[in-house]
């Protein structure tokens, strides 16, 4: 067994596999190209590199925390197993009929996304529960056996079971599993009442189908990974990061692989939450901008905001409704098709539009000089002086400033009568405004005022745009942590063991049943704590209780936290008071005289957060003079100014510099607008605040 103080974080992304090794001596990280055919190969390679650099043997690793986009990619690229759905007679097409609406109202040639399973793979059984979970039509075991024979003949490797109202009574789904297990022992089975026991059949069926679809693939990968690690002498437990921001065991992950979807971005949010805790920040907006997308997440009290449903594999310009809904506990993030590679064009109204189409790495932005002719966000950044053509990516990719200007002039400048600089300004403002609007809408939906927030920015493109974004959002303070390029993998190492169990049980406060609620919370608590116990038999476990409530007749619930005491001795008056406080905070006023109802109950079991050392924050120290300057366009001033250029690794704790400035490192550049000043904190964070020269 390894040394528990030596821990490894691994994030398999679309392009790179990031590996971070943490020892009592410090942190070592590396990036290896992702090996699609056998993703474990990149991990083994990465482990060899970091162990060599840290001078530890692979056998010394005490714990591995792993997150991956493999599950997400399998859903997007439709590379899952041959899967069947068993559902209630009369409801064969739920996953195909969706919400019966068009997500884009004005496109006559709209294509709806194909359901994950073709119609012939969706099979039905005569059975029915009602909304209270009472059996209306009993399930006939022989009919299930006959269906099992059909599934066997057709050679399905995985089966999803989604029956109507199974969240209220899972008996029929369990009977289907028992019969299948007997008849077809090699076939994997997923039940909707276990994967996502929530009301609303479209979301629940889609979630269980997605789980079943990727289960054989993920189970096989995780099995191979465990084997390879043992061969390499790494004999330690492997845990998986899940979309809700916690960690589960390899066995749980193999059973519920759909919970791994979005585990990488969840790691990023946990990374930001850890920085927030180290600085004692109550309200943080995490901003992660890479090559193709930007992600925004709200973090309060060191905890990223979570949601119960999200959409994966959007097929139409990242448009809401064009993907498939997955209802699992997930860190609530807004994802926008805006990254460094996003391409710009001029539309019919002579407006500049940016993204979601991306230049990718081939041909890349025009300035990469690989044949790209359309201007990307990176071309605008270069033309505005935010990037140095010589030192980009540590000098490994020389940038062609003339090509960037040419693309801006041809595609934007000519139709709009602008020169390259003004076109670049327009492009950058449009992309920053798009991200700012997404952040504003997200904040409003959560009843938050961003003026009270601090931004934490990471990902290759974020530090170039974060300063301007803060100006637009009225945010006073921005932190750019070190190690931002492997933020997700570092985040994995900061995540607690956690699991959320939830269930749809409908109850009005006027009809509140304390005994039932108490029993329900107890049962959910057992289930959630059981998962955490399977990771760590001895750890302390905290249980968080939540009821999702709304006025009777409304369609949107809001989550209401209850204390352990309130969950152990529930009463209607407390629930009402807690709900009204939350509702008033969100929407301004409560509605008098209305009944209130609870639709979903949840218990999140988690190990306590790791103790973090508060950063001893430096006051503004010595103002350092820039070693050199260059021309930088400042959008708030609307003009080009002379900006100081600093190398990040030459700044000492307490060093302070005035905007306009650029702080350069290998992976990225931090732009300090004219309205701000920057301070290097002892932990390496660059702290950008209001008040420039």
């Amino acid at each position, binding site marked *: 067994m390894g040394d528990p103080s030596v821990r490894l974080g691994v994030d398999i992304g679309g392009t790179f596999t990031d590996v971070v090794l943490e020892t009592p001596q410090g942190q070592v990280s590396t990036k290896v190209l992702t090996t699609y055919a056998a993703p474990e190969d990149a991990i083994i390679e990465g482990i060899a590199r970091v162990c060599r650099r840290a001078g530890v043997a692979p056998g010394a690793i005490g714990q591995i925390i792993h997150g991956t986009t493999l599950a997400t990619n399998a859903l997007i690229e439709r590379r899952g197993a041959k899967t069947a759905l068993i559902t209630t*007679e*009369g*409801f*064969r*097409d*739920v996953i*195909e*009929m969706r*919400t*019966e*609406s*068009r997500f884009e*109202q*004005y*496109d*006559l*040639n709209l*294509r*709806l996304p194909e359901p994950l399973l*073709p*119609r*012939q793979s969706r099979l039905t059984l005569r059975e029915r529960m*009602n*909304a209270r979970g009472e059996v*209306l039509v009993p399930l006939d075991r022989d009919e299930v056996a006959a269906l099992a024979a*059909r599934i066997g*003949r*057709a050679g*399905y490797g995985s089966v999803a079971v989604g029956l*109507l*109202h199974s*969240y209220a009574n899972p008996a029929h789904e369990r009977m289907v599993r028992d019969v299948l297990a007997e008849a077809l022992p090699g076939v994997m089975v997923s039940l909707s009442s276990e994967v996502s026991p929530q*009301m609303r*059949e479209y979301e629940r069926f889609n979630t269980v189908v997605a789980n079943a679809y990727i289960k054989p693939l993920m189970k096989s990968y995780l099995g191979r990974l465990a084997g390879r690690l043992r061969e390499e002498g790494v004999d330690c437990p492997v845990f998986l990061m899940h979309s809700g921001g916690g960690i589960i065991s390899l066995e749980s992950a193999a059973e519920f692989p759909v919970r791994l979807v979005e585990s990488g971005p969840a790691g990023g949010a946990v990374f930001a939450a850890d920085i927030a805790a180290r600085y004692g920040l109550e309200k943080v907006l995490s901003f992660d901008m890479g090559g193709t997308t930007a992600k925004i997440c709200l973090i309060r009290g060191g905890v990223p905001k979570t949601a119960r449903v999200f959409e994966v594999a959007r097929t139409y310009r990242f448009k809401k409704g064009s993907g498939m809904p997955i209802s699992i506990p997930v860190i609530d993030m807004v994802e926008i098709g805006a990254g460094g590679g996003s391409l710009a064009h001029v*539309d019919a*109204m002579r*407006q*500049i539009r940016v993204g979601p189409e991306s230049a990718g790495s081939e041909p890349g932005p025009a300035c990469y000089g690989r044949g790209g002719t359309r201007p990307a966000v990176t071309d605008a950044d270069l033309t505005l002086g935010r990037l140095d053509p010589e030192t980009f990516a540590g000098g490994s990719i020389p940038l062609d400033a003339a090509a960037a200007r040419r693309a801006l002039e041809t595609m934007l400048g000519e139709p*709009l009568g602008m020169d390259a600089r003004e076109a670049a300004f*327009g492009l950058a403002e*449009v992309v920053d*405004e*798009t991200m700012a*609007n997404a952040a*504003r*809408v997200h904040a*409003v*939906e959560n009843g938050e005022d961003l003026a009270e927030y601090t931004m934490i920015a990471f990902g290759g493109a974020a530090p170039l745009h974060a300063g301007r974004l803060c100006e637009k959002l009225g945010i006073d303070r921005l932190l750019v942590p070190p190690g931002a390029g492997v933020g997700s993998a570092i985040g994995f190492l900061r995540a607690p063991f956690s699991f959320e169990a939830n269930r749809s049980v*409908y109850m009005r406060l006027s009809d509140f049943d304390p005994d039932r609620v108490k029993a329900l919370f107890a049962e959910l608590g057992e289930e959630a704590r059981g998962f955490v116990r399977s990771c760590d038999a001895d750890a302390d476990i905290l249980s968080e209780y939540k009821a999702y409530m709304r*006025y009777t*007749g*409304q*369609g*949107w619930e809001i989550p209401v936290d209850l204390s352990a005491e309130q969950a152990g001795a529930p009463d209607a008056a407390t629930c009402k008071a807690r709900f009204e406080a939350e509702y008033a905070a969100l*929407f*301004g006023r409560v*509605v008098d*005289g*209305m009944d209130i109802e609870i639709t979903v109950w949840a218990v999140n079991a988690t190990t306590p957060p790791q103790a973090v050392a508060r950063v001893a924050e430096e006051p503004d120290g010595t103002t350092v003079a820039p070693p050199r300057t260059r021309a930088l366009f400042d959008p708030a001033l*609307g003009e080009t100014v002379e900006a100081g250029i600093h190398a990040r690794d030459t700044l000492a704790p307490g060093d302070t510099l005035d905007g306009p400035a650029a702080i350069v490192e290998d992976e990225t550049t931090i732009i300090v607008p004219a309205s701000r000043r920057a301070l290097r904190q002892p932990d390496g964070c660059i702290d950008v605040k209001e008040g420039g020269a």
Partner: protein
Amino acid sequence: MTPTTVQYQVMWNRLVSVVEEQAQALVRTAFSTSVREAGDLSAGVYDLQGRMLAQAVTGTPGHVNAMAESVGHFMRRIGVETMAEGDVYITNDPWEGTGHLHDITVVTPSFRGGALVGFFACTAHIVDIGGRGFGADANSVYEEGLYIPIMRFADRGAVDETLVRIIRGNVREPDQLVGDIYALATCNGIGHRRLVDMMDEFGLETLDGIAAFILDNSRRATVERIAALPNGSADGAMTIDGYSAPVTLKVRLDIADDHILADFAGTSGLDRKGINVPLVYTKAYACYALKCAIAPEIPNNAASLEPFRVVAEENSIVHALHPAPVALRHVIGHMIPDTVYAALDTLLPATVPAEGAGSLCNFQVSLRPRTDAPAPADAVRSEVLTFNSGGSGARPALDGMNATAFPSGVMTMPVEATENVGPILITRKELRPDSGGAGAHRGGLGQYMQVAAREGHEFDISAMFDRVDHPARGRQGGRPGAPTTIAQDDGTPMRGKGRQFVPHGRTVMLAFPGGAGYGEPGARDPALVRRDLAGGYITPEAAKREYGLDDAEIARVLDAVETGEEIE
């Protein structure tokens, strides 16, 4: 300082985002299922001339043009000089709002530093407004429910309690309706706050500059699109079921250099029952149909809508005047795009789809304890409204969409959610094989539904269905979609429209219409025919009859399904 072009662009994006926030706030706080589940709503921002500058993407086309005109009526009736901070105005006038009493429109003046700078408006479809209840059976608008003329809901912040009491006393679900009115006022308030933030940030005193920028660019872009079309005229017509008698919709389209005129002369007169359409709603859907085909990506505002002109004869069914009954104006209104496309297809071949289901397949169910025998103690009364869709018409290069609303923009409600609302049982909701009209591109499939009550209940169903006798017609040799059918499980026939009783223990069997096909079925890609057969979108009989598959081929496909082989 005059803002730069780049700053104006940023402000335009911001206004679109502001109205989207306004709409989202409405969805989150509304009580009626039609708003919160189905998205039957609209939200927008207006300048001091009452011109709509931006409209939320969330919402349904029926409100587009209707709400755009509404603010002008509010300005005239209330009197701009009497408006004050804290005011909120309201109406459900079908002719000055959005077409029936079931839509509540709320307008809020936006003041900054004591000066009026603009307006916010929003509209939502509510489940009940009293009267006979939502349905087709009224003989005049007076029977359809409570009428709220354009008036103050709040005067300088003080809600008119007399109005609230009158509303509460006249509707079946008073909490729900009053909650919805508050939600409408809240959502305008959120829009207002964000507008003021934007004006502060950019140092704007008025919206004049940004209004001119938005409207000039939108007008020019729209007119450029129209100018690129060949000038010409064409006629289109479509006959549908109606209520008392079949209805023929007629339109003549004239494409000029800088506008398109849609003239509905020759269309049938008023129906005696509540399916008549105020002109605002006709304009909304005619305009929507044209915009989809000609200028889909240009945002909705006063200038981008203006070049699409719509006229009709007074007291024809598409220009109903007070006091005609109009509660189900959507049933006819949703058919207007197919009528417009009948004409547009002549002028712009290979652009528009074949006819589809058209109107939403909605019904409202009023459940109550059984009266033919003693009812169980836990039996209750309940009103349940559902929105459902048939198939859309096949496109020139694509199949129609299965069970998907067009032209309406609303969503269906989940069966599990509906069954949690009241003692209703929906025992089937799935695609209807063979209902999509055959063609080189197949029409979208309609759907089957079966509706019953929980043990111990009986119910009335208010039917709102068309295309029972007039299924969707194909283009270029495409075959018609399947018609609507409705009956009870014991064979008792039922009507497509109107309130009808269903005794204890019976189930209503519904089959919603399919979209029509596009192009000759013989030209369909054989691989798509095999795919449809394998998935059961078409039966073996239809594969043989419509597409000429032989028995051996059919057996091969069905066998491949059994053995789990890929079908190419």
